[in-house]
């Protein structure tokens, strides 16, 4: 049992705006005319396509195999025909294109034969392989491949299931826990088995009483009191992995370490649900629950086939007039979608239609007065204003020393800043500059190493050539000298041998 909760420093309490989308049950979103399924769906690798244009595929059929150790497989979200494999804009702040498999659904939605894998009898290796082959990545947004996180499966004592969902507006995890608590709990138990953890603790922000009740009931009904459902105080970013670990266990995992180093592993409730679907039901990850909210006619949570263009989903939910941009993710850490043609992927937890009324533009930036509000709000304990001054002055070395890279870009500092300074932008800028400088330095040092080794090689070759030449000269000289000596010796021999020719059978060696 959890005996007490811990606090993390800082944090904020923005208006939650959860009610807009949390009231209605999860509804299926209709399939679009074309599904665009990106090959990259995890943060540590990609899939290798195993279909070609014209292939007929069934729902749940593997269309891309995991590539490398960090890759995860991708599957057809609906039955239909592969139209092409091409480059499409992705749901990323940059709007860059990436390879995707385009499928035209046939409307029949026929499943491929599913093969459940019984966690009780299957080997750990098989289960991990199945998780990778089912395309399971972290559903909280970071899309870290779950099979990589599960690792070797030793040294873990506590498994945390993250149902905090601290970002305003987002309610997909809330609805998932309310409606599919049994699957979440089953998935959590499988994850415990795989991680080797002794106990499971589920952290849920206390602004979701229905989810807490549903999860508690699911644990009780499954007959075992082996899972702690713990309400945690609602304070952004309580759902950040390291913040939740702090709240539930008291452990602070520094930026340079990962949770496993402290015997803790943390999975999102959506991931636990997906693990249950993949193993118990044999269903690969082909859809996810997406909160669509903000300036729309029908806000709510939708079961969306991966690859569904955001524009299709928005059309279905009815975007209202006055929408100025579309946010993907929450308002604290999400980004403005450069194109709504981008498809929903495994990390797309929320789509917000933003209007100036709901999301007023920040007032004009004013100079920093070092009031310290940002430092009080920072959950990492940084002094954002100090980093701001250093970033502005491009004193990047000092910014690094003041632990710029510990910043998790949660946005609390910019949220509270009375000068309305876009602090996170400054930090992103400084980080990218420092990384670029590092790359440059690396490139320069590589070039120097190459140059130095070339010089060394040339010098060595020259030396070797000289040595060879010298050796040859020496050899020739020695040969000549030996020749002379032999001639003299031979002459002497001959001279000596003259009187007694009959005594000597062997002829003197002719050195020439």
């Amino acid at each position, binding site marked *: 049992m959890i005996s007490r909760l811990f606090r993390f420093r800082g944090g904020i309490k923005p208006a939650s705006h959860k009610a807009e989308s949390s009231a209605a049950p999860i509804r299926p979103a209709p399939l679009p005319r074309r599904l665009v399924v990106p090959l990259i769906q995890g943060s540590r690798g990609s899939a290798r396509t195993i279909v070609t244009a014209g292939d007929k595929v069934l729902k749940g059929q593997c269309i891309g195999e995991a590539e490398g150790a960090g890759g995860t497989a991708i599957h057809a979200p609906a039955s239909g025909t592969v139209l092409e494999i091409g480059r499409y804009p992705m749901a990323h702040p940059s709007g860059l294109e990436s390879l995707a498999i385009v499928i035209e659904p046939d409307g029949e939605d026929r499943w491929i034969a599913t093969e459940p894998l019984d966690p009780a009898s299957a080997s750990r290796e098989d289960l991990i392989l199945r998780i990778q082959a089912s395309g399971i990545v972290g559903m909280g947004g970071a899309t870290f491949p779950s099979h990589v996180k599960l690792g070797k499966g030793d040294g873990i004592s506590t498994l945390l299931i993250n149902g905090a969902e601290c970002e305003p507006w987002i309610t997909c995890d809330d609805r998932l826990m309310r409606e599919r608590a049994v699957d979440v709990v089953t998935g959590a138990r499988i994850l415990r088995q795989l991680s080797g953890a002794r106990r499971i603790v589920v952290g849920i922000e206390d602004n979701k009483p229905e989810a807490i009740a549903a999860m508690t009931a699911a644990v009780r009904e499954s007959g075992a009191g082996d899972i702690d459902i713990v309400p945690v105080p609602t304070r952004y970013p309580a759902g950040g992995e390291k913040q939740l670990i702090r709240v539930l266990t008291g452990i602070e995992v520094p930026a340079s370490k990962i949770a496993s180093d402290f015997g803790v592993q943390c999975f999102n409730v959506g991931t636990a649900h997906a693990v249950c679907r993949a193993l118990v039901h044999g269903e690969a990850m082909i859809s996810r629950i997406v909160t669509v909210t903000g300036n729309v006619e029908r806000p709510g949570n939708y079961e969306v086939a991966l690859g569904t263009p955001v524009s299709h989903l928005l059309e279905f939910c009815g975007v209202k007039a006055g929408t100025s941009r579309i946010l993907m993710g929450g308002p604290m850490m999400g980004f403005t979608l450069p194109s709504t043609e981008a498809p929903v992927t495994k990390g797309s937890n929320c789509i917000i239609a933003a209007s100036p009324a709901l999301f007023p533009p920040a007032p004009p930036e004013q100079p920093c007065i070092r009031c310290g509000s940002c430092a009080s709000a920072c959950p990492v304990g940084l002094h954002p204003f100090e980093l701001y001054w250093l970033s502005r002055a491009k004193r990047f070395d000092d910014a690094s020393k003041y*632990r710029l890279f510990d910043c998790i870009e949660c946005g609390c500092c910019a949220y509270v800043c009375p000068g309305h300074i876009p602090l996170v932008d400054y930090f992103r800028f400084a980080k990218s500059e420092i990384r670029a400088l590092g790359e440059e330095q690396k490139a320069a040092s590589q070039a120097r190493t190459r140059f130095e080794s070339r010089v060394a090689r040339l010098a060595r070759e020259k030396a070797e050539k000289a040595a060879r030449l010298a050796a040859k000269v020496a050899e020739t000289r020695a040969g000549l000298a030996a020749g002379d000596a032999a001639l003299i010796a031979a002459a002497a021999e001959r001279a000596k041998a003259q009187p007694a020719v009959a005594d000597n059978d062997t002829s003197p060696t002719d050195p020439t």
Partner: protein
Amino acid sequence: MSSPHIRQSDASVQRIMLHVLLALAPGIAAYVWKVGAGILVNLAIASATALIAEALVLRLRKRPIAITVSDGSALVTAWLIALALPSIVPWWLTMIAALVAIAGAKHLYGGIGQNPFNPAMIAYCTAIVAYPALMSQWPAIGNTDFATQLQLILGGSREIDGITGATALDAMRTGLRNHAEVHAILASNAFGLAGGRGWEWIAAGYLAGGVFLLATRIIDWRLPFGFIVGMGVTAGIFWLIAPERFPSPLFHLASGGAMLAAFFIVTDPVTSASTPRGKLIFAAGIGVIAWFVRTFGAYPEGIAFGVLLMNICVPLIDRNTQPPVFGLRKETPP
């Protein structure tokens, strides 16, 4: 546009400054009640000068004018200057002080947020070094009517006999230099319950405003606490050793500008230390220096010098008191 996409709606520089101005109101009310309405004239002169100077300098520097003039920071500086100067100084001295603070101490360094020194304290020090006589003429409690004060402020004549009175710090200083003992000096008419007679109420007004600023989290408790502890403990040690030669901590904290400094000057975010430990060190340093200047220095009040000296130390203090970040604190439980 990038994250975060929402902002705390009531967070603004203007709100902070308005809170500070509001918090000064009880002290000003006590001032008017005990000393007279002359202070209001000085507040007006300082405010007008500061705002005009701010606008002009911003124009010269080709910076946006309206947003900075309306942020309230110049008004805070102006009010602090008016309250730090004797309330019957001639109008031009108040104007010079406000000009020095805004055009010099603030904008020569780059404007709001950039100044290393507290502008109001730069102005106070300039005035006391340049016009020591005028700066020592404090109105006696309850002795002067508004017309006389107005004449002293606006008119040229300085017929001040019978109008001014020695402040508590002055009276104590003079008494001690004449080898009188503390309790004998305190028996005189200039002293009240804690500090100077009547002035203690103004100090109480500042204290009330300070409590308001603490409650609304505009200021960090460490700054007033550090200052009060710094000055109180230093005074306390000497007072315990030789109570006849050193007045009590209570006397020091209730006299002069101690309460104004503790809650409104030491707490200036721009020029104070920023780390939790740094704030304590910074504020305590001011308290200690102020006590030493009061006790052994050439000026009766030493807070301004303490503030400026500690302002210089802020980068050093901040650099050496950076708190450990998440995951690197020692007390992390297993």
